[in-house]
């Protein structure tokens, strides 16, 4: 295994990259709107405020310790020497971003990390919607931004062992989306389903989101943010030339579009009508899936990635709810974890690389997927389980009945709305 070096950026590339990095908050805003729209109206303000607080906590924790653990290529790192290989597993940078050289590759990578850790942290809010306490979501974010995220990000983007194997994840399908999605799965397991979601016989009841317009507006913002995320990630961590950004933008758009259309066609064929919230989830799933290989796949491959991501979302949302008893109001597990894992696998299968490099890339992608499932999932579950033992993460029954806006914030998002509480009547 050879150490991975930081890419040298020309001044023009660095300026372009900075612009792309500054687009990433648009993706975060998009996901926040999607989460709020897919939740109930009595939790809408709580959902948006949770998003804001979680982003703030993630940024602070990443500044204090996360960036140091993540490190960057060519900088100090802790390594184990096993069987003749150096296993570079975590960064050994300085806390509080001390010693950061402003204006160079490392400062852009640190800014990218600061933006993308917020994006990862907001993903579990979708699965914990309507029942996750504000304080608990912030505490869980401390663990994600301070430990789980930097640990995997170091392996992929910090010159760690996965990068040394040749693992490709330009836009963070694994680092941001799957890490966030697996945390979302852990959170939904720990919190349990919303009251009234499952009948005593185990049949799920539909608890539709309160505002489809917010959800669809979120998709537009996410698209813009993802264009920046994928382009900046590819320039910084895959070392592609700025001229390749056009291909990245084309791939990103094609994958999102084909995924949304695939979901529209499937829901139309199965249910007789097109499902708006599932189409929105499909759109984001396409963005998520193409993130891994946006810089190394051809446009036709991006369409295939998007189509399969869309189909996966429809069936995994249904499977998780009907057969596995997972109550995930925002579809975070399907959209971010399932589609992200598919994107990582698809990069190994469809990347346009030299024939001699294909088997190595495929193996590296499999190792990355195995690490996410075999190490990151137990880690994030264990940390959130411990947190739940110290202080329960779920809101009290009264808070869930009343709505988190009134219970935790003291005021609703829509004060003129009437509250109907039929779903809490004894049947």
């Amino acid at each position, binding site marked *: 295994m050879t150490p991975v070096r930081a890419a040298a950026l020309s001044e023009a590339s660095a300026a372009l990259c900075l612009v792309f990095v500054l687009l990433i908050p648009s993706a975060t805003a998009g996901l926040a709107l999607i989460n709020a729209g897919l939740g109930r109206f009595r939790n809408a303000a709580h959902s948006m405020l949770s998003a804001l607080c979680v982003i703030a906590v993630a940024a602070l924790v990443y500044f204090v310790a996360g960036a140091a653990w993540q490190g960057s290529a060519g900088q100090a790192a802790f390594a184990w020497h*096993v*069987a003749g*290989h150096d*296993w570079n597993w975590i960064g050994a940078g300085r806390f509080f971003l001390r010693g950061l050289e402003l204006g160079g590759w490392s400062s852009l990578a640190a800014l990218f990390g600061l933006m993308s850790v917020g994006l990862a942290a907001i993903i579990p809010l979708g699965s914990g919607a309507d029942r996750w306490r504000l304080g608990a979501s912030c505490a869980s974010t401390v663990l994600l931004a301070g430990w789980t995220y930097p640990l995997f990000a170091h392996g992929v983007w910090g010159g760690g062992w996965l990068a040394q*194997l040749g693992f490709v994840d330009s836009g963070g399908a694994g680092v941001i989306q799957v890490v966030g999605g697996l945390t979302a799965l852990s959170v939904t*397991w720990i919190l*349990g*389903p919303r009251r009234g979601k*499952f*009948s*005593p*016989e*185990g049949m799920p009841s539909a608890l539709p989101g309160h505002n489809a317009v917010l959800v669809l507006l979120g998709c537009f913002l996410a698209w813009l943010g993802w264009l920046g995320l994928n382009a900046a990630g590819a320039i910084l961590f895959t070392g592609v030339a700025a001229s390749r950004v056009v291909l990245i933008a084309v791939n990103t758009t094609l994958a999102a579009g084909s995924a949304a259309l695939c979901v529209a066609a499937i829901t139309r064929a199965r249910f007789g009508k097109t499902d708006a919230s599932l189409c929105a989830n499909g759109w984001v799933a396409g963005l998520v899936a193409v993130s891994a290989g946006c810089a190394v796949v051809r446009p036709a491959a991006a369409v295939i990635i998007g189509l399969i991501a869309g189909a996966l979302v429809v069936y995994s949302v249904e499977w998780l709810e009907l057969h*596995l*008893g*997972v109550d995930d109001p925002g579809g975070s597990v399907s959209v971010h974890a399932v589609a992200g894992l598919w994107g990582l696998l698809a990069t190994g299968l469809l990347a346009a690389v030299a024939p001699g490099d294909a*088997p*190595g890339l495929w*193996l590296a992608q*499999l*190792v990355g*997927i*195995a*690490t996410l*499932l*075999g*190490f990151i*999932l*137990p880690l994030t*579950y*264990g940390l959130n389980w411990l947190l739940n033992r110290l202080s329960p993460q779920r809101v009290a029954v009264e808070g869930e009945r009343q709505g988190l806006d009134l219970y935790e914030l003291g005021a609703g998002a829509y004060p003129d709305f009437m509250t109907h509480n039929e779903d809490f009547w004894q049947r």
Partner: protein
Amino acid sequence: MKLTGFLLLLGGWIIVLAAIALLPSGASEVSFVLMALGVEALGLTLVFRAHLIPARERK
């Protein structure tokens, strides 16, 4: 069942690490990694089953 599932997930990952550290590149390495993913799939199945809500709790 939950603990067993998580141990299988971790076990699968350790097999992957062992395969890439100890085996030469080639078919044996790929086979071990694929088998390890199978172990992880089994672990994931157990963890999902462990989290299915028992009927008495739903009532």
